[in-house]
């Protein structure tokens, strides 16, 4: 058992937050593997999940390095993924929500891709070289994630009466979890500096333009859920971890 809950260093918190978002999104998307509505789309979503797990590994490796420099603790990408509890995780709540139907999955992926695309663009110019390198590498993948998920929002929003209804339902279910992405925590503000303004604006503009083209309405301002960034999660995260961490917990200290 390890914990990163009490770590104060904003850079470490930020890197863990990025890794956790990538890992939990990848986990949920990977649940579709073998169950997608169209074989080509099964492959596409599995590919996105694979990118996300890859991004998580990069961020965790960097976080492990930073933690070791700070307090000498020897951690790895796997100890960060497999040996922490839900209060240590800093992913946004939206990432951990169940997949629901294809419309909810697409909406989740679109919201997150639009955010990560602009975030990684900003980070690619960050003075922290390691972060900039990971972000630049991930940005190539995000280009595809954003195009793929935007295309699907259009297809569903402007497809059939049923698909439009399902997109509207997805928006109703998930909308209150969208703002957390751009409601920056202190540790994000410190690393992002002024670039956080443009990330917020670009994210909102992207969603508006795709929604407009798809004939979907952005809901009126209302209550927004948050907590993930400081380790207060929904009930779903515990089950994700139970599943994900089973082997590491049942057979401690084994090599796989």
């Amino acid at each position, binding site marked *: 058992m390890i914990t990163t809950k009490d770590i104060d260093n904003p850079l470490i918190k930020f890197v863990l937050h990025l890794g956790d978002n990538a*890992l939990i999104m990848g*986990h949920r998307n*990977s*649940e579709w*593997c*073998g*169950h*997608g*509505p*169209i*074989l*080509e*789309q*099964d*492959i596409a979503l*599995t*590919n996105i*999940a*694979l990118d996300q*797990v*890859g991004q*998580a*590994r990069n961020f*965790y490796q960097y976080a492990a390095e930073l933690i070791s420099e700070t307090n000498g603790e020897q951690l790895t*990408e*796997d100890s960060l*993924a*497999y040996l922490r509890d839900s209060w240590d995780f800093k992913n946004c709540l939206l990432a951990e929500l169940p997949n629901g*139907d*294809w419309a909810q999955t697409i909406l989740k992926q679109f919201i997150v891709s639009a955010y990560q695309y602009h975030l990684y663009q900003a980070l690619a110019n960050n003075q922290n070289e390691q972060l900039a390198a990971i972000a630049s590498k991930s940005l190539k993948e995000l280009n595809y994630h954003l195009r793929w998920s935007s295309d699907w929002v*259009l*297809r*569903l929003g*402007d*497809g*059939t009466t*049923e*698909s439009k209804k*399902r997109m509207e339902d997805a928006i109703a279910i998930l909308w209150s979890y969208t703002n957390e992405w751009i409601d920056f925590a202190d540790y994000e503000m410190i690393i992002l500096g002024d670039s956080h303004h443009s990330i917020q604006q670009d994210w909102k503009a992207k969603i508006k333009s795709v929604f407009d083209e798809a004939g979907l309405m952005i809901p009126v301002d209302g209550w927004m859920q948050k907590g993930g960034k400081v380790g207060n999660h929904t009930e779903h995260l515990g089950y*994700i971890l139970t*599943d*994900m961490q*089973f*082997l*590491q917990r049942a*057979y401690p200290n*084994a*090599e*796989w």
Partner: protein
Amino acid sequence: METSLEEQFQQKIDQEHKIEPKDWMPDKYRQTLIRQISQHAHSEVVGMLPEGNWITRAPSLRRKAILLAKIQDEAGHGLYLYSAAETLGISRDEMYHQLHSGKAKYSSIFNYPTLTWADMGAIGWLVDGAAIMNQVPLCRTSFGPYARAMVRVCKEESFHQRQGFESLWVLSKGTDEQKRMCQDAIDRWWWPCLMMFGPPDDESTNTIQSMQWKIKRFSNDALRQKFVDMIAEQIKILGMKLPDPDLKWNEEKKHYDYGKINWDEFWQVLKGNGPCNKERLDARRKAWDEGAWVREAASAYAEKKHTNQLNNSNKVYENVH
């Protein structure tokens, strides 16, 4: 003397020329290939399920990425194979329909459960290993699109087999529990893998004609023997045992002898009575049924885009003239 179409066809095959989709072919050749290629495609797609079980539970991020990539490869194989079958005049939807209605089969091996993490290694090493034995000769099969699809499939499968072996190798060098897990997986997968080559030659109804048409190049028993010989050697490196007391090297034949296969179990699983037949088909049907509205939306949207484009080009035309 004039030769019939059928004779010309057979001559072409005898001279090792590939048959291409537009060439004349006997109806039975076409039907046999549709059955075999679609069965193969279905096996790839249903085969995603037993391994898919362990994606969320993979014990390290590296193993998770390897497993995801592997299953994604299998979906890709399904795609090439469905495309190859489509060149014979059947649609992918029709093939899915045959799978969901139970008319088309898929490899029975995927009706066995994946109970521990070691099963991921055993599937890679043994199941993919057996599949490769069957598939390498198919790279030279007489129907061009099938042969070409198999070249790609085989390259990726042999990579999967090495990964599977490596994953078991790590377990075999690990803790006592991991060693037990490794042996248990081998014990459960060994006999079903031997059944993957199909019934013994004297009971196999499709073999003779398929050999003449060079769809098949080796008999079921010949391929099975090759597989036993290979695995009986490789398992020594793992320090594990195959669950067959009769397995021993036969110096005279230069092959391994092996015990009696339980063919009753094979026929039962084929009939639908295997441990996971129902789950596997239910999962495929559910994905298909629940995806219906998604596919409808995608076609409706594509249709709208197409109409808009036509309208726009008409407008351009009207403006110009």
